[in-house]
């Protein structure tokens, strides 16, 4: 038995070592960097963190990241539910349509960001052409130049790009729901929307929770690509999410230790959610 245990251990060893070297050591290294100030050779301890807790820009970035993540995941869920219901039909070529709707997820963030940038361009972008003959909205809205709309513009791109992930999982969940409960409900006189809210959604609740938490983590940690390409942090920092702020501190700040400190705080927040997520998965497996 012990020999068998060793074999399993050995198979997993390369991956373990690889991840320790490429992820855990660097994280520790970043923590160590945060305890120094770039220009001073000596250990400065938590000085960077003290500065951090008084930095208004940090708090605004935190707030912006929070809003961005919550809103993005929320609308991804809505859109995901909608498309999952839509694609849960038995019509011809449904596999084709399911495959096609997945394309936004496959497209690189950089490409999605550029298409978004183009669409939002005043005068030549797609969006500016519609209002001109609808005459409802101001003919030359500058979505990206306006601090109040820049973040929303990026959220829309983010939702578009990642919602198929939700659809995929929700669809799989929907297909595992036994059909008889719907029939029973129909016999009791339930209408479609009632069936949806009182039968489908409760059944999907564990799936919804899992993918929402997962996407909260995923979105906040990987939002850099979209934001940087579309607005570089937005007009007057309106879309400056934490990864962007860290990037700015890395290259235009005078203290890499400070950027490291922000990163560590950011990582702590993310790790809390990751642990919640992993524990949740483990709980549902048992």
């Amino acid at each position, binding site marked *: 038995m012990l020999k068998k*245990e*060793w*074999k*399993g*251990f*050995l*198979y*997993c060893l*390369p*991956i*373990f070592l*690889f991840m320790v070297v*490429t*992820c855990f050591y*660097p*994280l520790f*290294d*970043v923590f160590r*960097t945060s305890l120094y100030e770039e220009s001073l050779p000596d250990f400065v301890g938590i000085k960077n963190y003290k500065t951090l807790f008084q930095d208004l820009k940090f708090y605004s970035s935190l707030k912006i990241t929070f809003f961005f993540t919550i809103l993005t995941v929320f609308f991804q869920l809505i859109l995901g539910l909608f498309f999952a219901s*839509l*694609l849960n039909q038995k*019509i011809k070529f449904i*596999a084709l349509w399911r*495959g*096609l*709707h*997945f*394309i*936004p997820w*496959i*497209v*690189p*963030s*950089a*490409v999605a*960001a*550029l*298409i*978004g*940038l*183009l669409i939002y361009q005043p005068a*030549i972008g797609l969006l500016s052409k519609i209002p001109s003959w609808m005459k409802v909205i101001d003919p030359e809205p500058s979505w990206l130049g306006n601090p109040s709309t820049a973040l929303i513009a990026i959220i829309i791109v983010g939702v578009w790009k990642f919602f198929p992930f939700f659809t995929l*999982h929700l669809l799989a969940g929907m297909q595992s729901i036994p059909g008889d409960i719907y029939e029973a409900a129909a016999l009791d006189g339930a209408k479609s929307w009632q069936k949806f809210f009182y039968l489908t959604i409760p059944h999907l609740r564990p799936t919804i929770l899992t993918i929402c938490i997962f996407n909260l983590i995923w979105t906040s*940690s*990987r939002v*850099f*690509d979209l934001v940087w390409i579309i607005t570089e942090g937005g007009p007057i920092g309106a879309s400056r999410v934490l*990864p962007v702020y*860290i990037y700015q501190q890395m290259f235009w700040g005078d203290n*890499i230790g400070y*950027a490291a400190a922000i*990163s560590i705080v950011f*990582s702590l927040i*993310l*790790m809390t*959610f*990751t*642990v919640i997520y*992993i524990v949740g998965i*483990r709980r549902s497996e048992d």
Partner: protein
Amino acid sequence: MSLRGRQTRQTHIYIVVVIFVGLILLPIFYMFLISITPARESWLSLIPKNPTFSAYFKAFSDEKLARYFANTWILAGSATLISLTLAFFGGYGLSRFRFRGQNMFLFIILITQGFAPITLSISYFRIAKVLNLYNTYSFLIIIYVSMCLPFCTLIMRSFLSAIPREIEEAAMIDGCTQIDLLLKIVLPMSWPGIIATGLYAFIQSWNQYLYPLLFTSDWTRAPMTVLIAAQKGSYVVDWNQIMVLALFTCLPAIILFSIFHKQFTHSIAGGFK
């Protein structure tokens, strides 16, 4: 419901599905539309009056573009191969053996998904400087693998668990060595898993932007994503050129996905269990 009524309802649903999926793909159509629109003047109208493929010809004649494209293939392809190998062994170990620390191993692997790339980059910079690996393929490939590996391992594990052990046990009784067992029996049976894992790793690596932005410095190593993002900064923005590049960047992933999409959707759903 009568047969006629049901057919009508089917048609209605079909139309709705087509409309909404079409709406989702609207940006992609737009990308193509702009790519065939001749230079600046025509962008003021929605449909180009004189569509032309001149932007495509210009792109094809640029040797640097070929290099960027090749770089993306090299980076994504190598990362995929390495991820597949490591994930195959790890998935096999996880699905076949029960050992102490197994759960801890999974926990450690999964928690790395919560490490933001920007955070790790601060350290990667120092490492690149010390080891003199700035602007090299290998450095980026290793980082790419670290991003894909956790999920790839999960996906391989779920696919490998589905392979019955009786075949392996029978082979062992017949005197098969462990290596032969793996390569000649398990490997051929795990093709769906390999395709699914490979697709995931490839698309993840192909789509990387931040890491190559930080760790490549010129056209000899940079992938397509860095190239197209750099276009927006230029003084004169030729959107049709940019959209041609964007199409080039999307196309391989989309083509691969359309060939292998069934395995792929299995993998994403399966990797979560």
